[in-house]
């Protein structure tokens, strides 16, 4: 399977629940060895897509290939899954459960027990190996569940909201384990709400809204595509007097940084040069106005009634299926 470039290929997949269109003609690829982030407001169809990728439910139409072939029973041994709604047997001991789940994924019993033991030590649960899962705190059992996802050294892991409910220390711990997996060649698909995590961790992303793809590409590309011709500055000076500046607005609520929107013929370099050459400008910081993914998320997910043609148009419409019909409502987070 090493020769396969794309770990996941989803082509023209549609899934309806009765009259509700859960996933609408969706296509995307996940490259081997990358961290791929799945974004979108609640009800966008992320979990349905994940469940179709993992063959828990079948698509109505379209094709999905995982690790280079349609999903089979053999595929299950090479895939790890952390469901969004989590839970484990409460009355079973930690080490015992992880060993069992490892063997279900095709590991030998001794191997599974050894690796479970080792991973529990790694996440700081060495003391809890003999504890029943019902006795663990929420954060602890979430770490156990993460171990269950990776114990069998899968080639692909699909994690749905891996950081929800974790404190910053444990978030960092899991994040580093994800990086280690990536370094080891594992492909990671993450459905995630925390935008800063996506910006920090993901190589590429797919944003869905109402079952359809609205953003798709590398994180940098997406941010660039949403960039305006504007700069963010802080310091002192008459910003509006700079040639080519069309408007000056507060870039944060307190007004410590300002956003200078430029006309079409002015580049940020020209603004910087002008300020350097002109007295009375004291610049503490100067940056391109690249929107955060959070801004893009809110813009895309929150602008339903204006349609999302801009977003689609900006991303090579060839790949982006136009929604057949515009759904009337979306539930926002």
């Amino acid at each position, binding site marked *: 399977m090493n020769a396969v470039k794309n770990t996941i290929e989803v082509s023209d997949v549609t899934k*309806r*629940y*009765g*009259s*509700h269109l*859960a996933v609408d003609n969706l296509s995307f690829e996940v490259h081997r060895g990358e961290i791929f982030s799945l974004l979108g407001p609640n*009800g966008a169809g992320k979990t349905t897509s994940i*469940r179709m990728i*993992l*063959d*828990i*439910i079948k698509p*109505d139409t379209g094709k999905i290939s995982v690790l280079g072939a349609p999903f089979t*029973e053999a595929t*299950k041994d090479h*895939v790890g*899954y952390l*469901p969004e*709604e*989590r*839970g*484990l*047997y*409460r*009355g*079973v001991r930690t080490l015992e459960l992880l060993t*069992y*789940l490892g*063997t*279900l*994924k095709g590991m030998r019993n001794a191997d599974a027990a050894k690796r479970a033991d080792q991973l529990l030590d790694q996440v700081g649960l060495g003391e809890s190996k003999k504890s029943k899962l019902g006795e663990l705190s929420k954060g602890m059992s979430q770490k156990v569940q993460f171990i*269950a996802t990776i114990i069998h050294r899968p080639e692909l892991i699909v994690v749905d909201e891996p950081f929800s409910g974790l404190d910053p220390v444990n978030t960092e711990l899991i994040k580093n384990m994800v990086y280690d997996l990536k370094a080891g060649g594992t492909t990671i698909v993450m459905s995630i709400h925390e935008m800063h995590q996506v910006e920090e961790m993901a190589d590429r992303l797919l944003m869905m809204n109402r079952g359809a793809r609205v953003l798709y590409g590398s994180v940098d590309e997406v941010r660039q595509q949403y960039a305006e011709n504007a700069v963010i500055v802080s310091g002192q000076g008459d910003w509006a007097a700079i040639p080519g500046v069309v408007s000056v607005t507060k870039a944060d609520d307190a007004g410590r940084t300002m956003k200078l929107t430029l006309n079409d013929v002015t580049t940020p370099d020209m603004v910087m040069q002008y300020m350097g050459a002109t007295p009375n400008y004291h610049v503490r910081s100067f940056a391109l106005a690249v929107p955060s993914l959070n801004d893009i998320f809110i813009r895309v997910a929150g602008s339903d009634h204006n349609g999302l043609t801009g977003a689609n148009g900006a991303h090579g419409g060839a790949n982006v299926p136009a929604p057949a019909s515009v759904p009337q409502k979306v*539930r926002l987070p």
Partner: protein
Amino acid sequence: MSLHKIWLILQREYLYNIRRRSYLFTAIVIPIVSFALSGLASNFAVSQLDDVGNYQHIGVVDSARIMSGIKLPAPYVLLDSEPIAKAGLQNGQLDLYYVLPTDYVTSGHVDSYSRASLAPGLDGQFLKLVRQALATKVQNPALITRLQDPAPNYKIRRLGSTQVYDQSVLFSSFIVAFGFGLLLFLSISTTSQFLMSGVVEEKENRMMELLVTSSRPSEMLWGKILGLGALGLTQIIIWALLGLVYLIVRGSLDVGTTLANLQITPGLLVLIMAYFVLGYLMFGALMSGLGISVNAEQESRQLSGVISFIAVIPFVLIFSFLSDPNGTLPVIASMFPLTAPLSMILRMAFTTVPPIQIVLSLAILALSAATAIWLAARLFRLGMLNYGKRLGLRGIIGIAFGGRRVITSGATQTEAKT
């Protein structure tokens, strides 16, 4: 299907559930307590009715003049009149006395007087003495024996059956029928509870989603049914061993004789096994299917109760089976899959069942078991992710006939398969 994964799931289900307190309670504490109680109860009954060892002197006032033919053994003493007996009771020389009035032979009237405690009846030994005394009034000695035990050596034959029943065979038949019925009922009620609560737990704690990405629904189903079947079998063995120990200790069962009298031919054994296995598979699949379809443990208990009750209906109708094993009701009950295993074993114990009926009943049962397993596997595949929703009858029928029941953000809908 991977046998290895079925084996893993089977092992987990068995080892997990066998350590549960509720299982240990059902398997060990309940039989010990119930044997102890039944032991106490029968001891009590014996001491009240038959065992006169506690009494020093029991007076008999024979106004009817019937005891003259025999000599009364201790502790019985013949007294001349009631006032003497009464005085004896009052001053503690007597523990108890009986009065047979002059009109006893025609009226059957007997009076018993005791001090404080009220015996629940006349002691059996006294009644035996009266019977002996009455028999001496008959001249023919052979008649006396028959009078006391009219039919110790009987044989029963049924029209159309070559089997001859005597007392020991009848007793063995009862043992087989009741033993089988009890075992079936026990394994069904044990497994139904554990199977259902296991599935409901996995739905509630979301293990299901993890399991379904590690194994096939059919592997999960088989692993669970077989694992819990083994658990039920373990329970049966524990009960049987405890029961055997109890009977041997009490000395009320000559184990060797009873076993020798158990007329179980290899053919009958195969049939019993077939009904047992098919019946268990059908009930096991039904219970798992229901477990996946209901939402709360409470609900699952009620449903499993209903199914267990249907399974033991033949016990309720035991007199129909005894009086006419080939009658309409027993025949229907032995065809209906839920009651077939127990009914057919009862019938086979009491009569010769036409082979065609056995074949038909086994075929119906096998088909029902296969259908139940198929339906349960389908419910596992499609119903397990319906968190927080209960599959109604319509939903189950929908799944059975190719529809797909799904949960959308707001409503539950049934969608025809495309």
